[in-house]
């Protein structure tokens, strides 16, 4: 039995061995509220992160897989979401006359992307299209910790590094040359709950928010996992006892 477990661990270790050597600097440790078996999103943190996204990131980055209605999970009520959605204008149609028209957003609409297409996005951003952020926390090694590190990782380039026009130096970005200028500066947003808006605070908040956009069912998944595992452990124990009893006459 012990050998069986050892083999299983070895096989699992083989799986995790696929991770490549990081090209950026090692990510600083941060303990997230959504880590671990009982992890949940910290509502105030994620709401602050949403504010950072809306007021800073959304100028260049889309969130096309997230609908306004989804934000209900973060503690916004229906009226607040209707008001929020209505701040955006959507082109819809054709109507009965065959005309396209503009209308205010509803909770069923998805966050509009800031550029009509990737070419336009690249043209307005020094040739590098800003990626959509819906899944960014799952689409980068290190996940939310990487997002947080990247946003706080801007620094002056070492003397021997010559950056191309418009590029910045970032400790954690693979290759260190990043097209995105430092997006956050102290007090870039004004938090309603009075939290001081330091760069690190905003980076942490928005990274938590982006983890939620990438994995909106995380809380449900973890809560269900506990029940499933408890059931399976008890049930497997019963099966083991039954096995011992049935085999008793053979040994």
């Amino acid at each position, binding site marked *: *039995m012990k050998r069986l477990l050892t083999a299983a661990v070895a096989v699992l270790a083989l799986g995790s061995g*696929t991770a490549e050597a990081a090209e950026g600097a090692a990510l600083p440790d941060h303990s997230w509220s959504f880590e671990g078996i009982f992890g949940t999103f910290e509502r105030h943190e994620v709401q602050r992160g949403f504010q950072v996204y809306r007021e800073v990131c959304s100028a260049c980055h889309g969130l096309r897989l997230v609908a306004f209605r989804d934000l209900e999970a973060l503690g916004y009520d229906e009226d607040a979401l209707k008001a929020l959605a209505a701040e955006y204008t959507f082109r819809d149609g054709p109507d009965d006359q065959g005309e396209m028209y503009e209308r205010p957003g509803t909770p069923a609409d998805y966050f509009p992307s800031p550029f009509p297409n990737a070419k336009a996005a690249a043209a307005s951003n020094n040739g590098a299209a800003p990626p959509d952020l819906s899944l960014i926390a799952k689409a980068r090694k290190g996940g939310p910790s990487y997002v947080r590190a990247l946003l706080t990782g801007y620094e002056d380039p070492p003397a021997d590094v010559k950056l191309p026009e418009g590029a910045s130096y970032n400790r954690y970005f693979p290759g260190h040359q990043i097209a995105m200028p430092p997006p956050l500066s102290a007090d870039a947003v004004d938090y309603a709950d009075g939290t001081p808006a330091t760069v690190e605070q905003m980076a942490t908040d928005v990274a938590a928010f982006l983890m939620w956009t990438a994995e909106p*069912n995380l809380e449900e998944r973890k809560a269900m996992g506990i029940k499933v595992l408890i059931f399976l452990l008890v049930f497997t124990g019963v099966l083991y006892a039954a096995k011992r009893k049935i085999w008793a006459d*053979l040994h």
Partner: protein
Amino acid sequence: MSEFKSNNAVIKWIEYRMPIFSFLDHAIGRGYPTPRNLNYWWNFGSLAGVALVIMIATGIVLAMQYTAHVDLAFDSVERIMRDVNYGWLLRYIHTNGGSFFFIVVYVHIFRGLYYGSYKEPRELLWILGVAILLLMMATAFMGYVLPWGQMSFWAATVITNLFSAVPVFGNEIVTWLWGGFSVDNPTLNRFFALHYLLPFIIVGVVVLHIWALHRFGSNNPVGIDAKGPQDKIPFHPYYTIKDAFGFGVFFVAFAAVVFYAPNMFGEPDNYIPADRLSTPAHIVPEWYFLPYYAILRAVPDKLLGVIAMFGSVCVLFVLPWIDRSPVRSARFRPIYKQFFWIFLADCIVLGYIGANPPEGMFLIVGRIATAYYFLHFVIMFFLSYVERPRPLPSSISEPVLKGGGATAGAAAKPMEKA
């Protein structure tokens, strides 16, 4: 181990017209005599069956929500993850189920290698198993392409391009596989169709695999044939309950990953929609293909690399004729046992190399490990003639562990109880 009997009128009525109950009784019931000494490594065959059922069940439901089109596939998977009721659960079960299927099947294969389960008269059983492995690899590869993320697209591009190494017709074959001049919508469509089809072909080959198994029954840890009824016990209830306990342990491990580390086996790049203009820095296959990938890249010539990669699996087809030792179980083959563990370590090293870029030390180690992989089979051939096996016990039920087999059985001994 008597004939099937029932007092239930309905069962008797059906049994008379279609003897399905006696069939089942002979397949997995009291009417199937099984060696009494099977250890827990023998659980992995039925576990593979469970994994196959899980994959088909979740896969069919996912297919109801998935859209096989290059513009829609990625978003349809995200819709499953976000809006379909329990879609995230189904998809995480399906993606991780692939990994667990391979874990279970690899353990099953190495168990067969250790205990000589491929030897006479079970050669055909083994060959059918290797065929299942090949079908699984094709199915897994095509399934990985369906979400149409960056790794999906580039894995499809790299793997289909391997066929361009075929002399003369290489490029024509690749164009034919793609249904066009690059990996595109026709490729995705046919991969979806085949990904849906192949699991049912696997089911068919599994039926043949079990059919062949039942001809002579399971091999066993001492690898000798049963000498009489005292060496065997009925499959039910002894192995049904032992397998059921194994299912429980499997489900605990599976649930732990599905609920708490669902992206552990995946590549982050596959959460980026496919983009033919941007090649990922490192194109890596899923972990279960890494050893083959290492072999492919270890060989400097493209065609020979492809041949080596496919050869690394296909050599298993002829293994029953490479290993000529009449003794099945490695417990009684002191030298083979050492080489078995070296071979297992070699496969793990190849997996590690496959995950890393083919340069510097990785390339050198990869080449040595690749050479050793094939050398192992040469060694097995000559070992058959050189090795002097330990004396075999006279029967399965004889308490062999008290006698000469004490050292050989030491490692496996604790597992036999439980």
